[in-house]
């Protein structure tokens, strides 16, 4: 198992993301993708886990192009693998960590089948490098329910038959989970107001289904989010 890789531990302060000039940032090669998203989303304060094989060049740590040890916090567990820096989080999950709930469909950030939560926010796992996802809290569909103990969102999708072939379904589940987490509690995005169809459509506009399961997904997800708001307000 990936957990048994026995990678070296990270050292405090051994950060890839800290204190880069823009010019250094542009020169960092393989790590640039990692920093790109972090900087763009204003979340650069998250230190990436250390990369023991990092080289230094002009004061900037370089990794790759060969495989380097990485580790992630996924569904509350710490997992490790040794991968090339160019491997996406999606491929790391699916091909190296046996977490195949997130699906690879478009592989370019359009279809939503690979949706996961990173630090509580929905993200396309195909569009973030595994190396840049280190040090952040990752939640995949495997972290919700099991077939025997479904999360209420999952139970509602089953009950309303909001799935057919099922290939897009885990992505919808995670997008819906992100929506539920954002709005379902007092002080959340929408407080306890009943969710509208328009709000649901916005929340899930980043996911596509080919079999045509929207008719089942709509009542399923509205019922759960309404119930969550009602119970929070009670």
């Amino acid at each position, binding site marked *: 198992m990936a957990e048994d890789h026995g990678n070296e531990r990270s050292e405090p302060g051994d950060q890839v993301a800290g204190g880069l000039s823009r010019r250094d940032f542009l020169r960092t090669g393989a790590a640039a993708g990692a920093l790109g998203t972090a900087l763009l989303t204003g979340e650069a304060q998250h230190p990436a886990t250390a990369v023991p094989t990092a080289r230094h060049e002009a004061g900037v740590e370089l990794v790759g192009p060969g495989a380097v040890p990485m580790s992630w916090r996924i569904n509350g567990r710490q997992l490790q693998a040794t991968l090339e820096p160019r491997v996406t989080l999606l491929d790391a999950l699916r091909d190296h960590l046996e*977490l195949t709930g997130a699906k690879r469909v478009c592989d370019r950030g*359009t279809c939503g089948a690979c949706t996961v939560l990173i630090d509580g926010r929905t993200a396309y796992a195909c569009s973030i490098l595994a190396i840049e996802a280190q040090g952040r809290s990752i939640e995949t569909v495997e972290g919700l329910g099991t077939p025997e103990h479904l999360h209420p969102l999952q139970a509602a*999708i*089953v009950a309303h*038959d909001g799935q057919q*072939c099922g290939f897009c379904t*885990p992505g919808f589940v995670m997008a819906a989970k992100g929506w539920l987490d954002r709005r379902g509690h007092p002080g959340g995005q929408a407080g306890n107001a009943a969710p509208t169809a328009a709000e649901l459509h916005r929340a899930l506009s980043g996911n596509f*289904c080919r079999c045509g399961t*929207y008719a089942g*997904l709509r009542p399923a997800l509205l019922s759960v989010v309404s119930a969550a708001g009602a119970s929070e307000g009670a």
Partner: protein
Amino acid sequence: MADYSWPEAASRRLIGKRIARLDGPAKVTGAAKYTYDVHRPGMLYAKVLRCPHAHAKVVELDLSQVERMPGVKAVVVIQGEGAEIQWALDEVAAVAAASEEQAADAVRAAAAAVRYEVLPHFVDDYQLDQAPSTKPGEEQSVGDAAGELARSAVRLRRRYGLPRVAHNCLEAHGHICEWQDGDHLATWSSSQAVSAAATQFGEGLGIPASNVEVHTEYMGGGFGSKFNIDSWGVVCAKLAKQAGAPVRLMLDRDAELTVAGDRPSAWADVELGALADGTLNAWISSSWGSGGLVSAGSPPIPYIFEVPNLRHRHTAVPTHTAASRAWRAPNHPQACLITLSALDDLADRLGMDPLQFFNKNLHLTGPRQRFFAEELAVADRLMDWSRRWRKRGSATQGSASRGPERKGLGLSMHVWGGRGHASNCDVTVYPDGAVEARLSTQDIGTGTRTVVAIVLAETLGLPLAAVQVRIGDSQYPTSGASGGSTTVGGVSSATRRAAVDALAMVFAKVAPQLGVAADRLEAVDGQVRVKGEPSRALPWKRAAGALGVSPVTARGTNPGPGDLINSGSAGVQMAEVSVDLETGIVRVDKMVTVQECGLIIDLQTAESQVYGGMIMGISYALSEEKVLDPITGRMLNVDFDSYKLPGIGDVGELVVEMMTGPEYDRRGVVGLGEPPVVSPGAAIANAVANATGVRVPFLPLTPQRVLDALAGPPESAASAPSAASAVGRT
């Protein structure tokens, strides 16, 4: 002979009820393992070198450097020096490497190691007069079409059509191949035809089909494009053999969209006429379209209506594109769009409400006339059509307050066969009461497991949780491909026969214990009991215990004894749209489908098929089109950004009404997957014509096409759907 007939409605606990699909929990949690998810020890990753040209000869191909690249374990030439490539993205070579990234590196290097002689190509099938060759079909002729057309009180001549659309399965086509020894192969294949796949691998590799086991526990969509293992299935197995390790070969999205299946285009010039009272009288049409280099069949034009005076010919136009595949309801959506649009235009010219016009001509629909009449009445009520319909372009429902937006209503009708395919099912009852059905069928999202379980549990008087269904393995009893709406009929009837016979085996053992003849027993509520004497009963487990130490297995087949299935379903759809006259944007506000399909096994998954058909139909009506570039011969929109599918907010309110009751039950089981995807193109296009007052002649109904139609006569050249002009439209 045993009585295999379906139980009467009053005694059914499961059949026809709304039952959640049994594999839903596995799918919704990510626990379900699709082909793409299977990870075999030591598995390698394959990538394919594809030809960038639509028509070319491979002049030079030297992969000796590629073989030595890091991580590369196998290289297979698919079309080497001298081969003539006939469509863009066809396969030239494939590599397997330790990581997918290394395989991608190798394919990039291979692309630099191949030289092509580019040859002339033709892809723009709409331009019939520019086609290097055509293949005209036989002319159909009934009555005196030309004479009756001339005598018709109202006549119309127009062009209609729709382009190629892709299957675009979310799980790409592909396989994992693993050799167990020199001539025994195991595969995990994203397939709609598990039984056939083993034979195809055997043929492709020169090994006995019995040496191949194919697994398809879950598959992520097929829609008619996954009946064959394809050239890449054989390539995957060859790579695995060469490397001595399992290999995964899944198509990238650009290949999935370009070469892994599409629906043929269809264009038609139609002339038709009616008598003054609205009776459809004459039809003359000439249609053409392309499904690649080979002919892809001919749309059944005119659709549904047997016009008494008719002349029609379809011409296949060969193009340098990968062969079309059976896209859900092959040829029907094209024939429906062309025919029902023309009839809707004729009704308008007659000054008739299309609902009245179609009802007036239902006698031309043959044996389904009665179903159509009932369904049109139900749809009328659900859409409130008769009260709300207004003449074309008269701006229905308060448009004045809605600025540039106009609403309209449209109607269409469809048919399909759907007789159950050949299927075998083994039902085993174990002495501990366990029950299992095995059949080499597959679930393509339609709910096959659930249907088999419902029939098995219903027949044995057991709860659903008490039966096991094992499918998706070629080593189980042979079952047909899931295509043409044939699966539910095939597996439900085979399972019913097997379950009835297995139960008879149990009854034979239990009868002495209960002191009656076996034919006086019944299985109800988890018990085997004497008919009419419910107190004389044994719990199922104890009854099964009478089997002793050996389980019993009964084989059920379809076709087989008893009248369990049928062919021929009819359905109607109505659409309500809003069209913005300034932007040309069409929104589907509401769609209604009224559908019959004989005896329904699971009402919930049946309804899901209809919802799915409507949504897939909204998709090809409004946004889907394979844009083929005449200059390069390549498909331009090879990703989800530009090959557009509707999202959850784009499909409006959807209403499904399944026709049920004794007269439908009596027909037996009829397949349902295809019918609901046939009508949406015509229903939505007709609604747009009703809203705007003009006919948008070609799908998809993009804003540009709507604006073009509003700007000028529909036959104008500005609306020609050539790929070059479509680029800016999608």
